[in-house]
């Protein structure tokens, strides 16, 4: 470390400065490559590591080379201490948490980034206040930075609490006008500070508007996420993720820092596209998600539901074992019960009996797009057995048994044949086209969309009630004994 410092001391001021800019450039390029690689299954892991490498470069270079009016970074021991605390906590949390809790974890870390961005903007405010003059350039970045960072922080915390089951939904129509009003007030506040130079004619802007903005943003973040249903949380997290990117970019603008700017904007735009893609997978518009329309109008079809037929574990085992082709449709129930390993074991048992088994993965199965793939991969289910919805649907009419484990809305035929249903138009796995359907479910509760599922009343469907883990355990025993 000492020798590095010797070398650095010999560098002229401009050398260090150019080196810093060069490293920021490299870091930005690595971010782009990292994101690109993350979007392909084969290179995804490397992409993540490259982006992390770019980040390390940017951080180290900032500590070593950053200058303001020739003054180097001070308080380095304190910075390193803060870094050690954050890194240890981040590492431990990220390593310890169960795979099923991944979505709320992403939300948590996103909130931390948002809070960080808001803090930075907040701390920079007194500086420009003291400097005098009319610093439009800085104000134009500080105010939105505070606003977006704070919304992202409180919003992410609420999303975290919701996914973790600590916070319920709050659905009242009154929230919508309130939210729109808050949004308008925040925007007006920003514009007001910018267009009325007389309020800081004496060289002082006064921190009041910023603190006011901070408070309103915090409330808005909470109220913005509160009414949104649990199933839509991934979309919200993705949206908040791009918000934080934007907040980081405002920080980059403030400091004329290229790494922050490119990194932030990149995430901001990529995150927005990702949000739109997620909405599209559910056949819903972003506005629809934000307005919290899901589960709003529940009673679409007041048809007599028909009768439910149960099946014993023993019969289910026989039916499965003597089938040629079986397709498993896993849902969040499987993840909650932590039954992915047992599920794979059942599949192995069936394969020993010569049954061909595949998994049908709905784009939004589980709690996040791709979440189910991650969980099944954790249980060592081979990648090629996981079929996407469009791939498996044509095969389902030739499938002897479809086993639905803890999934509900993604196999609800109402999405295809009931125009009045809230989920009408959402692409589904067409389980009802198979020859037999076995539905494993804890009880007759409704899914996230809170609507009746007529698949359960289909004459071809048999229900297997119970916790997915227990039921699978029993099923495996029965199959072994056959």
């Amino acid at each position: 470390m000492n020798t590095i410092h010797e070398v650095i001391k010999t560098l002229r001021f401009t050398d260090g400065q150019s080196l810093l800019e060069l490293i920021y450039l490299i870091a930005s390029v690595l971010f782009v490559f990292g994101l690109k690689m993350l979007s392909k299954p084969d290179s995804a892991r490397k992409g993540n590591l490259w982006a992390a490498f770019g980040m390390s470069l940017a951080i180290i270079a900032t500590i070593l080379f950053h200058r303001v009016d020739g003054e180097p970074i001070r308080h380095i021991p304190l910075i390193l201490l803060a870094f050690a605390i954050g890194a240890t906590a981040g590492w431990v949390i990220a390593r310890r948490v169960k795979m099923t809790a991944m979505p709320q974890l992403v939300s948590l870390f996103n909130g931390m980034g948002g809070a960080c961005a808001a803090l930075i903007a907040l701390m920079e405010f007194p500086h420009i206040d003291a400097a005098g003059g009319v610093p439009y350039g800085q104000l134009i970045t500080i105010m939105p930075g505070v606003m977006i960072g704070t919304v992202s922080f409180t919003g992410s915390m609420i999303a975290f609490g919701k996914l973790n089951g600590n916070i319920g939904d709050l659905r009242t129509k009154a929230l919508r006008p309130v939210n729109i009003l808050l949004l308008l007030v925040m925007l007006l506040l920003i514009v007001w500070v910018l267009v009325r130079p007389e309020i800081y004619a004496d060289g002082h802007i006064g921190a009041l508007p910023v603190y006011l903005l901070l408070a309103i943003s915090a409330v808005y973040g909470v109220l913005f996420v509160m009414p949104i249903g649990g199933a839509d949380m991934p979309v919200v997290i993705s949206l908040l993720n791009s918000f934080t990117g934007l907040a980081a970019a405002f920080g980059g603008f403030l400091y004329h820092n290229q790494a922050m700017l490119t990194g932030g904007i990149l995430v901001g735009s990529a995150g927005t596209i990702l949000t739109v893609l997620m909405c599209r997978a559910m056949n819903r518009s972003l506005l629809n998600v934000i307005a919290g329309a899901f589960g709003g109008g529940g009673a679409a079809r007041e048809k007599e539901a028909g009768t439910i037929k149960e099946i014993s574990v023993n019969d289910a085992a026989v039916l499965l074992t003597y089938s040629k082709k079986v397709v498993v449709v896993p849902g969040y129930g499987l993840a909650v019960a932590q039954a992915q390993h047992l599920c794979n074991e059942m599949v192995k048992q069936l394969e020993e009996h010569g049954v061909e088994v595949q998994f049908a993965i709905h784009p939004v199965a589980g709690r996040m797009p791709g979440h189910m793939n991650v969980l099944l991969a954790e249980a060592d289910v081979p990648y090629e057995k996981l079929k996407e919805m469009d791939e498996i649907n044509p095969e389902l009419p030739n499938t002897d048994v479809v086993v639905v484990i803890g999934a509900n809305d993604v196999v609800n035929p109402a999405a295809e044949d009931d125009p009045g249903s809230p989920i009408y138009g959402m692409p589904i796995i067409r389980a009802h086209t198979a020859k037999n359907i076995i539905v494993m479910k804890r009880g007759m509760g409704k899914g996230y969309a809170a609507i009746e599922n007529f698949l359960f009343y289909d004459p071809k469907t048999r229900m297997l009630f119970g916790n997915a883990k227990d039921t699978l355990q029993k099923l495996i025993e029965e199959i072994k004994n056959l």
Partner: protein
Amino acid sequence: MSEVFEFIYVNREMLFIVALSVLLGIEVISHVPAVLHTPLMSGANAIHGVVIVGAIIVMGHAHSTSAIILGFFAVILGTLNVVGGFVVTDRMLEMFRKKPKK
């Protein structure tokens, strides 16, 4: 109005970067299989942790005690975002590793 033009002129290079980065972000992400949505979101989440750079700058040039304390927290939060984000993403992607590609 002239202030706005001045702002645009002073920051013209930054605005170029913004415009091009937006397009780049859209281009990079637009053809992603649904399987990778979650890891990708998580990876992007880690990348915006680049705010840590701003936190270091604020902290490193802080003069008052209150600024140092706030900066300290900002660095902790930023680090949580960066380290937690990358580690979680890696853990998710680790799961895809063993897949024997046909």
